């Protein structure tokens, strides 16, 4: 489902980062662990096609996304990858529902309100459907961000430090939700984190140093 091949990347004026090859099969859950500065976020951005590798390739669902043009990779990402960022960002002028509908539309899928509300219901946040995202608590925001990453039924879910801003209770809750939803969609889940609380939950681990 997701594999890398001799992946490397260098920011201008900085030493090259080399990543060991790995392969995740469909439906597997993986952790990418490493300290700050070890290139965790860079790896996630490479996997999502948000950065183009200096060399090597990322193969996602049979497509070498490192070879796609800018526009095509935006389209591919929108349709196949759900991404959750460390801090959740939303379109401030839109409600929770509208944010999710926009995600469907920008990825080129038809608008499906019942799917949006169903998803929010499963994540126990449907009562905030019409709220502005900035009125929600951090935990609620993270749940909406998860809902947004799942709204197009992605084949792969990438999460960047999804729990670092959360307390133990919310951390447990959010992780459980992620695993559960990924399982229901049979999607590959890859969580990038330095959060020790997750180490014992997911056995497939990639260590960066």
């Amino acid at each position, binding site marked *: 489902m997701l594999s890398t091949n001799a992946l490397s990347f260098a920011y201008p004026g900085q030493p090259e980062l080399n990543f060991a090859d790995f392969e995740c099969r469909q439906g597997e859950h993986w952790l990418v662990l490493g300290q700050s500065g070890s290139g965790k976020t860079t790896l996630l951005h490479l996997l999502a096609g*948000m950065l183009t590798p200096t060399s090597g390739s990322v193969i996602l669902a049979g497509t070498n996304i490192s070879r796609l043009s800018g*526009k095509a990779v*935006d389209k591919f*990402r*929108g349709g196949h990858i759900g991404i959750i*960022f460390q801090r959740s960002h939303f379109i401030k002028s839109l409600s929770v529902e509208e944010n999710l509908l*926009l995600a469907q*539309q*920008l990825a*080129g899928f038809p608008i499906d309100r019942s799917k949006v509300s169903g998803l929010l219901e499963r994540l126990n946040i449907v009562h905030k459907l019409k709220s502005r995202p900035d009125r929600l608590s951090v935990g609620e925001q993270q749940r909406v961000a998860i809902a947004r990453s799942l709204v197009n039924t992605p084949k792969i879910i990438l999460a960047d430090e999804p729990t670092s801003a959360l307390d133990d209770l919310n951390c447990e809750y959010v992780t459980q939700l992620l695993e559960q939803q990924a399982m229901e969609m049979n999607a590959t889940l890859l969580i990038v984190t330095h959060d020790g609380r997750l180490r014992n939950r997911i056995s497939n681990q990639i260590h960066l140093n």
Partner: protein
Amino acid sequence: MNILTLSWKNLKNKPLNLLLNLVLFALGAGLIILLLLLNHQLDDQLRRNQAGVNMVIGAKGSPLQLVLSSLYHIDSPTGNIPIAKAKPFMRPGHPLIKTAVPLALGDSYEGFRIVGTSPDMLALYHASIAQGQPWQHPFEVVLGSGVARSTGLKLGSRFHSSHGFVLDDNLVHEDADAFLVTGILKQTGSVIDQLLLTSPQSVWEVHGDHGTETAPHDSTAVTHHEGAEAEPEKPLYEYEDKEITSLLIQFKNINAQTLSLPRNINENTDLMAANPAFELDRLFSLVGSGEKTLRAIAVIILIVSALSIFISLYASLKERRYELALMRVMGASPDKLTGLVMLEGLLLAAMGCVFGFMLGHIGMELLSGYLEKTYRYPFTGWLFLPGPELQLLGGGLLIGLIAAFIPSLQARLTDISETLAEN
């Protein structure tokens, strides 16, 4: 959730910025609309009231004043001329002159001017009688349609005229005979709607009782000679001891002789001849500089509003960097982001234009009441000039696009990885 809705919601999310941009834009566009309407209507009125008159003859003074007072009835006359001197231009059979319409000014009724003239005046303004009949005897008067509407005078009504052109109870000619309304004119849209027409003899007789008494605005009044009795059958140019204010002349053809005639009159007689077209152009060039200044101010306001749109888009994009990166992550192409920001600029400009058009037309309508009181010409805010207004709309939208250009480029070039990696 299309891109238009999203750009509108983004604008609405910053209500104060939205308000500032709209107010600025509407002010600039509104001022331009107002000037367009005012200029168009003033130009239209002045050209229409020129009524094919090629030359105005009157007493020496300012030629512009002569034209304004005799053709447009908005200034005081330059004085009076003896018929004895004007006679050569009034007699039928002059080789160059087709019509010569005499005007005897000096009195008014409720601020509307009473004009002693010949029936040729009606032909000059393409006016015709709607009710009653033309004036025949002294003290018979025909009302312009606007006068009839404003004063409420009807056929058979009688009134005393007032000396000079301003409404003042102390100047009413109580001792003179009362005027009798014998006719009312159809509406023409020209200045004749605002006049009361009678024979020159009536004006002479009203003033016949005053002797040489001086009244305020005396220079505007026709002077008169004791005991002169008017004889209706006698042609006007035979009253050699009387005076009129001016003559409106139409030439048979325009040729070298008619072109040099005004100069001949000015150099060789005590009379003054003025060319209305020439004086009008002079007036427009005088008024035009004021109008140009106002127009420049309107353009400056529009430029400032473009700057304001640019600054608010630019600042809001700085704040929305994450949102733009996020939209890219969700599948939006760079073109789509460019389109979104362009649309925000266009939307602001379009709404600003709409409010500006409303402001301009409503402003003109409010102003028209005041202008009508001052000039007695009808003005309206509900006149639409498709050509210039569409041009303004096009220009306005272009301003929106230009203001949004740099921010839209900035949106396009957002580095999504870098932006989203910042925490």
